[in-house]
């Protein structure tokens, strides 16, 4: 309904402009036709895959190696009888990385519920707090351990970046969790967290999409999900059609991009690429 209304309005607007313009170039940016085609193909791909995912079509996602490590690491905490620390990043809930972090938390909470391993989730924003709380409780209920659910497992720690970090570091040194998992958006504190966890002797698994923080996680953690692996991991675990569909659609576009690049390279090598390269000119 609203879609139709808007479309009619837009058409009215164009015909109005069209009627008064001397030159069609004053209206349409014909030089941006390539971008229009790209946007349309992209949108169709994402929407189609999202629809298929919602309909429950089997969409294949490869296994992410780091996920195996998560299960093993939680298992280790159980054996040692020490807690698992899970940090879902330090950004707001409107960031995809945070959403991915919270959804992976759901899976981790199920394992800790199953083995009665203590879980600690420090968060930095009230909205993330609410979401994480809900996800953890849900996991405990699903595993039939509703009474084992600890209301203080998810904790609002501090709003300021370094105050948050200092607090979590203090926890690591005092409680010495067997396993630390960092999944979400991390900034300059990545190093402080991972380094302290390393000093405390915990097994550490990290995942973030921030390339400038990844080197520190890779150096100081036992396993790291890099970049889009984080999103793939959360789609893989949650099987949420939205995430899955988006990811598959992006994969489809990536293949097209690789094919186009290969064609472009071949044409360029034979020096006949001018018109083809022109198709990708951004103006």
């Amino acid at each position, binding site marked *: 309904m609203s879609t139709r209304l808007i479309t009619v309005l837009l058409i009215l607007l164009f015909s109005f402009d069209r009627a008064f313009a001397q030159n069609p170039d004053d209206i349409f940016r014909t030089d941006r036709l390539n971008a229009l085609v790209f946007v349309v193909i992209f949108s169709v791909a994402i929407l189609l895959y999202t629809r298929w995912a919602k309909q429950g079509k089997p969409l294949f996602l*490869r296994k992410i190696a780091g996920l195996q490590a998560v299960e093993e690491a939680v298992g280790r905490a159980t054996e040692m009888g020490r807690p698992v620390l899970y940090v879902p990043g330090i950004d707001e809930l409107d960031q995809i990385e945070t959403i991915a972090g919270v959804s992976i938390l759901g899976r981790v909470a199920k394992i800790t519920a199953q083995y009665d391993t203590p879980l600690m989730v420090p968060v930095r924003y009230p909205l993330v707090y609410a979401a994480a709380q809900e996800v953890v409780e849900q996991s405990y209920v699903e595993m039939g351990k509703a009474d084992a659910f600890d209301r203080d497992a998810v904790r609002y720690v501090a709003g300021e970046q370094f105050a948050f970090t200092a607090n979590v570091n203090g926890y690591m040194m005092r409680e010495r969790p067997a396993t630390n998992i960092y999944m979400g958006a991390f900034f300059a504190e990545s190093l402080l967290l991972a380094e302290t966890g390393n000093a405390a002797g915990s097994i550490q698994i990290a995942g973030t999409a921030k390339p400038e923080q990844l080197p*520190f996680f890779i150096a100081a953690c036992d396993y790291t999900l890099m970049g*889009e692996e984080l999103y793939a991991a959360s789609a893989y675990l949650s099987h949420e059609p939205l995430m899955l569909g988006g990811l598959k659609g992006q994969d489809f576009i990536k293949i097209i991009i690789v094919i186009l690049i290969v064609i472009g390279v071949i044409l360029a090598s034979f020096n006949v690429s001018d018109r083809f390269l022109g198709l990708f000119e951004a103006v």
Partner: protein
Amino acid sequence: MELLQIWVMAFFTLALFSFLYKDNPVYKLAEHIFAGLTAGYQVGLIWDTIILQKLWDPMIGAGQWQLLVPGVLGVFMFARFWPRISWLSRISLAFVMGTTAGVFLVTELHGRVLPQMQWTMLALGGENGFAATILAIIVVIGVISTLIYFYFSKEHTGIFGGAAKVGIWFIMISFGAHFGYTVMGRVSLLIGRVQFLVEDWIGSFSTIF
């Protein structure tokens, strides 16, 4: 006055550095004042640059009454503090998010993906010479293998797995560069603070003692 300024700056600089030794009340005090200042700063800035300059003055001064729309949407943001009407704040949020998304959907594909694709279509061989060809090969293989590493619809086995393996090596080189540069950046920031402490603060001793 200038002396006082330098000593105030030095006090808060050293207060925050003191955390390196261990957590202490002076650090905590500085940290809490810091949090308050940042929040207070935004009020002054927004009051002047947005509320006065962009909303009040044009509306009251120049009679641009259409600005009532964003004004009301802005006030709606505060509805979230009252549960019964908190849904109103979602309209304002949706407006900001929707407009921003409208810009991003197009500009990310047009202004980022297209040019990056275009400049990966490099000629291998030809008149560019040997060194340029080697570089072009590195770039083309690097881009494709990175894209393959982050492709999730196929297991990393066979040729595809081989390409992903090449991708991870490339990625590690790039992360090494990030690492080196990050070290450089953090050291520079420390240099900046020490420059202040040594040149300005210790320099001011001579005027006192």
